[in-house]
């Protein structure tokens, strides 16, 4: 927008600006140029060192124009240089710096100095490795051994010779961590004769491997303990690894099957021993028997009833007795009265007759009491008789019960199919299978990898790569060596020898299975094994066929390892002979079959109830000193674990045990019978005692009644005697008086009766 200026007074006009003089460009003298352009050259030198290294025509022309002839040298050759008074702008200076640097870069084609330095460096590494290879190998072996065995590892001499293609190690000894002054094992020498060419092709092919002077438990000159710090480090590492492995370990189908079989075997074993013998427990039998007895109940009832009756009549005999004693005392004088002496004194006769009258009155009263009591007791005596009958019936019944229970006790009929001892072997074998199964899986996995060579799954990276064709590899010789191949191996020692052929990771290339024979004698135990490993794809033979036998093996499996289950015996055999064949199949589990002979066998079981059965059981076990055991075990993914034990030990055991039980049971029966009858007696004692008390009362009353009757009869006789005396011999002496007395006496007697 244009502004209106007419309305306003004109402003003071500014003086017009004078145009600035063009800024002088900064220039640089020759001394600021790169060194290359400050030098003086002959024409030849200029062409070679400067112009010959310029390939842009414009640059070449520019540079050639800068150089002017500035003089001549001693040989009268023209010299060229950039004139010293020349000035350059910044842009020119930069261009010349760039051109100079480009000229400098155009040197010879090969960078010899870095190349030589690199070659020298590689050579230095090779020389260092050559000089230190033995030290490195020694360090690697000792470190590995010490980590594994947690004890010192020593090597007297070690040499790896690449030129001779040999590896030699002498005086290799590994200490026993439990006994540091002894070696776990020692080897006099190990020699590998390997194929260097194959080694450089990343293959280990040993034509021969020899291991000599293998021995165990040899003496050491110094302690084999490793430092506590290193030991702690090793153990920490192992614990870490163990935890890692435990986390990774999943329960395989085999372990699940094994656990169920193991639990079932253990359960059967428990039931078969403790459950079976429980029925022969006298205490159990007595308890069962006591529950069926009638006497306790009947006796209690009878006792209560009898006691009530006894209490009812308890005071009567004493009451009657007291009265009887009184009457007896007063009757004594009358019964002993001399009637003849009274004949002269008729007044005394009268007194005597009065006394007799009085006594008879008392006797009549007493007799009446006794009769009443007897009558009463007689009415209850039938009831007491019924009670006694009840007790008797209960006793008879209980005797029958006791006999029935005791008869159970008289015979033992053990099922011959029971696995009293062999069941223990079931459990042991299941435990051993569980223990060694992880090694089996590791071994089979390794062999299967060797057989099928599954390619490791590479991590898929999302990168855009150009895929190339594989091409074809041309071989000019039969290049059939596998990555690892020991053609022949042999070893020996004072108590050890082995030989093996074709140990390799790829038997398809060697065309032969690996075969190894080992024989060893450690701690007076002879071991022999033959192992054939066949991972050839075309082979139908088992993956592993192992035949193992040993003699004089000490086999100890104490009962505590089986959980101290009552009756489940622990095994200790100092001379065991084993002969087993193990077959591991590619996709079908494994089978284990064989026989074992146990001599100097000792079986011992934790105690159980009843004690007498345990004593017989333990005694019978201890009598078994030898046994034969056949094992057929197998595992397939479809059928799980199958275990069959063939042994004569159960038959041996059962027949011996049954015979001993029969002998013992007779005495036990008598004892139990006596104890039961004693119990019945104990129960009935109370009731019968009360009945007896009642009967005693009855008898006493009867006795007292009889006494009363006796006294009465005697008094009656005495009375008759007095009457006779009164009516016969005194008739004459006192007719009137007697007559009157007679009358009086008669009237008195009349009153009396």
């Amino acid at each position, binding site marked *: 927008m244009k502004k209106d200026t007419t309305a306003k007074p004109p402003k003071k006009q500014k003086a017009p600006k004078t145009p600035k003089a063009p800024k002088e460009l900064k220039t640089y003298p020759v001394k600021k140029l790169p060194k290359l352009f400050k030098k003086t050259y002959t024409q030849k030198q200029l062409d070679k060192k400067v112009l010959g*290294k*310029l*390939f*842009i*025509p*414009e*640059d070449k022309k520019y540079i050639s124009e800068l150089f002017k002839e500035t003089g001549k040298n001693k040989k009268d050759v023209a010299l060229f240089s950039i004139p010293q008074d020349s000035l350059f702008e910044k842009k020119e200076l930069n261009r010349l710096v*760039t*051109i100079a640097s*480009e*000229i400098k*870069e*155009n*040197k*010879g*084609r*090969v*960078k*010899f100095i*870095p*190349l030589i330095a*690199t070659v020298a460096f590689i050579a230095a590494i090779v020389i260092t490795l050559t000089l230190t290879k033995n030290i490195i190998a020694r360090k690697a072996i000792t470190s590995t051994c010490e980590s594994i065995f947690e004890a010192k590892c020593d090597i007297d001499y070690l040499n790896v010779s690449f030129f001779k293609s040999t590896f030699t190690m002498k005086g290799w000894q590994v200490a026993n961590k439990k006994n540091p002054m002894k070696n776990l094992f020692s080897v006099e020498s190990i020699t590998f004769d390997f194929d*260097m*060419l194959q080694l*450089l*092709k990343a293959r280990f092919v040993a034509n021969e491997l020899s291991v000599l002077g293998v021995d165990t438990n040899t003496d050491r000159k110094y302690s084999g303990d490793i430092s506590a710090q290193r030991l702690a480090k090793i153990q920490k590492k192992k614990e870490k690894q163990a935890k890692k492995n435990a986390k990774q370990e999943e329960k395989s189908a085999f372990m699940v099957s094994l656990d169920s079989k193991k639990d079932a075997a253990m359960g059967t074993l428990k039931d078969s021993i403790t459950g079976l013998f429980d029925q022969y427990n006298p205490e159990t039998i007595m308890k069962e028997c006591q529950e069926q007895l009638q006497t306790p109940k009947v006796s209690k009832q009878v006792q209560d009833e009898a006691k009530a009756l006894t209490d009812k009549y308890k005071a009567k005999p004493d009451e009657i007795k007291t009265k009887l004693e009184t009457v007896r005392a007063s009757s004594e004088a009358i019964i002993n009265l001399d009637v003849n002496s009274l004949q002269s004194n008729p007044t005394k006769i009268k007194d005597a007759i009065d006394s007799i009258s009085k006594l008879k009155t008392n006797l009549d009263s007493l007799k009446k009491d006794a009769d009443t009591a007897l009558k009463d007791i007689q009415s209850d005596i039938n009831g007491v008789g019924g009670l006694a009958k009840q007790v008797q019936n209960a006793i008879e019944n209980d005797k029958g019960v006791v006999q029935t229970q005791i008869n159970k006790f008289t015979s033992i009929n053990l099922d011959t199919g029971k696995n009293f001892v062999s069941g223990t072997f079931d459990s042991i074998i299941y435990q051993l299978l569980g223990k060694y199964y992880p090694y089996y899986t590791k071994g089979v996995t390794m062999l299967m990898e060797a057989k099928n060579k599954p390619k490791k799954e590479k991590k898929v990276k999302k990168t855009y790569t*150009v*895929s*190339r*064709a*594989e*091409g*074809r*590899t*041309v*071989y*000019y*010789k039969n*290049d059939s060596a596998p990555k690892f191949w020991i053609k022949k191996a042999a070893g020996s020692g004072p108590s050890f020898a082995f030989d093996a052929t074709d140990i390799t990771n790829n038997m398809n290339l060697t065309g032969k299975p690996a075969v190894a024979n080992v024989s060893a004698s450690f701690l007076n135990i002879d071991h022999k094994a033959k192992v054939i490993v066949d991972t050839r794809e075309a082979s139908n033979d088992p993956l592993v066929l192992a035949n193992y036998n040993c003699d004089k093996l000490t086999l100890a499996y104490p009962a505590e390892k089986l959980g101290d289950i009552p009756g489940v015996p622990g095994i200790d055999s100092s001379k065991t002979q084993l002969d087993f064949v193990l077959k591991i199949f590619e996709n079908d589990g494994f089978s284990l079959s064989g026989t074992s002979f146990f001599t100097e066998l000792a079986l011992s079981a934790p105690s159980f109830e009843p004690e007498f059965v345990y004593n017989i059981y333990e005694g019978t076990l201890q009598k078994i000193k030898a046994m034969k055991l056949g094992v057929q075990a197998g595992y397939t993914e479809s059928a799980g674990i199958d275990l069959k034990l063939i042994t004569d030990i159960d038959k041996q055991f059962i027949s011996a045990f049954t015979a001993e039980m029969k002998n013992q049971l007779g005495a036990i029966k008598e004892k139990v019978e006596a104890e039961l009858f004693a119990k019945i007696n104990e129960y009935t004692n109370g009731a019968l005692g009360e009945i007896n008390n009642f009967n005693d009362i009855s008898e006493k009353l009867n006795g007292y009644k009889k006494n009363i009757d006796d006294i009465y009869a005697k008094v009656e006789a005495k009375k008759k005697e007095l009457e006779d005396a009164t009516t016969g011999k005194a008739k004459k002496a006192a007719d009137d008086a007697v007559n009157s007395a007679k009358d009086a006496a008669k009237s008195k007697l009349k009153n009396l009766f």
Partner: protein
Amino acid sequence: MLKAIIKFFKALNSNIHPGAVAHAVCLGMILGFMPKTNALWYILTVFFLFVRINKGTFILFTFLFSLLAPVLDPLFDTIGWWFLNLEKLTPFFSWLLDIPFVGFTRFNNTIVMGSLLFSLAAYIPVYWLVRLFLKYWRAFLAPAVRKSKLVVYLSKLPLIVKIGEMA
């Protein structure tokens, strides 16, 4: 890769020896055509690092030729198979294979041998073609291109200016 491209263009328009650029293209061709799964490729790479060539051009053409290589694999296979089965050379190859470490080069693979032979055969023609191209480029084509309207226009673009500053 951008740096390699910049360095290549810089080499085209600088006083870098044409041989350095031509060798870079040819060595890039050898490594680009050869498969990388063998020791020979790495040995050659290490050796080439000690040759004074234009590294940008070398890297760029190694990449470009490796893109082209799969198309030529059947040709390499044919050449390699023919060469490795030449009766006169069979004892030599057999002996060579027995030499320690030589097996790691996988020279007996048809693609490795075929691509190497093809690259060696093409080395001299490619070398001279590149040199010839450079000669004409630097003398005639570069000034003409530099003055062309398109290049003048492009050279003013901020991105191109930035790339130019990187060079």
